[in-house]
């Protein structure tokens, strides 16, 4: 149960209360300025950079997870479990690719997320469209060392998005709010 000491002040109004809880985090606010040359953000970035030797193998496992989820969809069809696994794998890649040093992978993964999330009946998604997305994600990652990799990734992702939008517009023709979302700009940079 919550203890009364959590609540330092409560003001009651007509239809709401405004509560100012005891500020337990104040203990961490220092009165002293940072020592000269001490930058916590730079320290954290340095720590992350020391970890970066593992990032390629992490990307391998994220891409393999996506591939496994694609094969589960192909063998078992779309159901709640296979749909969730495929979406989740793509969603993690979308969110993690840039942090792991492969930002150009994120857009293709994002396109797959949109395809799954915005299709009212996922069983109508053509299997080839899922394959194209998964293969694109894996190809962009695999060819990342090429000098023209980012340009190729951009072209590939743009084409994927066009094909996906065409399918989504057809599937959502009676859902104006979703159509607006589909035709809006992507939040994930190419």
């Amino acid at each position: 149960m919550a203890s009364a000491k959590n609540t330092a002040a409560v003001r009651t109004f007509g239809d709401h209360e405004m509560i100012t809880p005891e500020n337990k985090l104040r203990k961490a606010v220092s009165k002293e300025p940072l020592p000269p040359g001490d930058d916590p953000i730079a320290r954290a970035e340095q720590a992350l950079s020391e970890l970066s030797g593992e990032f390629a193998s992490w990307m391998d496992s994220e891409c393999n997870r996506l591939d496994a989820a694609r094969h589960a969809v192909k063998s078992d069809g779309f159901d709640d479990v296979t749909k969730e696994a495929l979406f989740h794998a793509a969603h993690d890649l979308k969110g993690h690719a840039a942090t792991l040093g492969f930002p150009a992978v994120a857009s293709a993964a994002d396109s797959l997320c949109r395809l799954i999330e915005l299709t009212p009946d996922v069983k109508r998604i053509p299997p080839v469209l899922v394959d194209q997305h998964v293969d694109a994600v894996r190809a962009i990652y695999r060819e990342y060392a090429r000098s023209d990799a980012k340009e190729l990734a951009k072209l590939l992702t743009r084409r994927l998005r066009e094909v996906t939008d065409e399918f989504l517009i057809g599937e959502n023709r009676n859902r104006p709010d979703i159509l607006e979302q589909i035709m809006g700009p992507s939040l994930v940079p190419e």
Partner: protein
Amino acid sequence: MVRIEFNRLRFLVIDDNAHMRRILRTLLHGFGAREVYEAEDGASGLEAFTHYVPDIIIVDWAMPIFDGLELTQMIRQPGANANPYVSIIMLTGHSEKRRVIAARDAGITEFLAKPISAKGLYERIVNVVANPRPFIKTATYFGPDRRRLLNPTYIGPERRKGGTKADVIRQAPLLDKIRTQG
């Protein structure tokens, strides 16, 4: 900028992705945190919240069993646990406006869209520590005040009732505004 002594804060990271937990732990240790606990889904996250009584929770949205949004709603139950006021930073790949609004309405303290950066995470933590907001309790909401600032140019209905001078947004009549602009 305010200096935060991270070694005096206890963190709980809840994310089903082991790579992201490792990244978050690394960043938090880099900031100077010592106590960083982890959980890999919403259910074990709730258990860890009760057990460790963290100061700040960093939670992913998409997770098995129950997700970060549901977990936040469970924590924001006045009287149901040790600290319904705990600071919750939602870290997620979902960045659409409707998602941000849903997270805000569930009672999160801060929202941080992936990809994560040391700077973005640091700023959110500094904000929850140095600039805590009061909590609002209504029939349908319990969580940090969703009004981060008073907007003197706001025109529209006042949704909160019975407030005093301090919490009522003054509404300039639309006609006056048109006259001023004209």
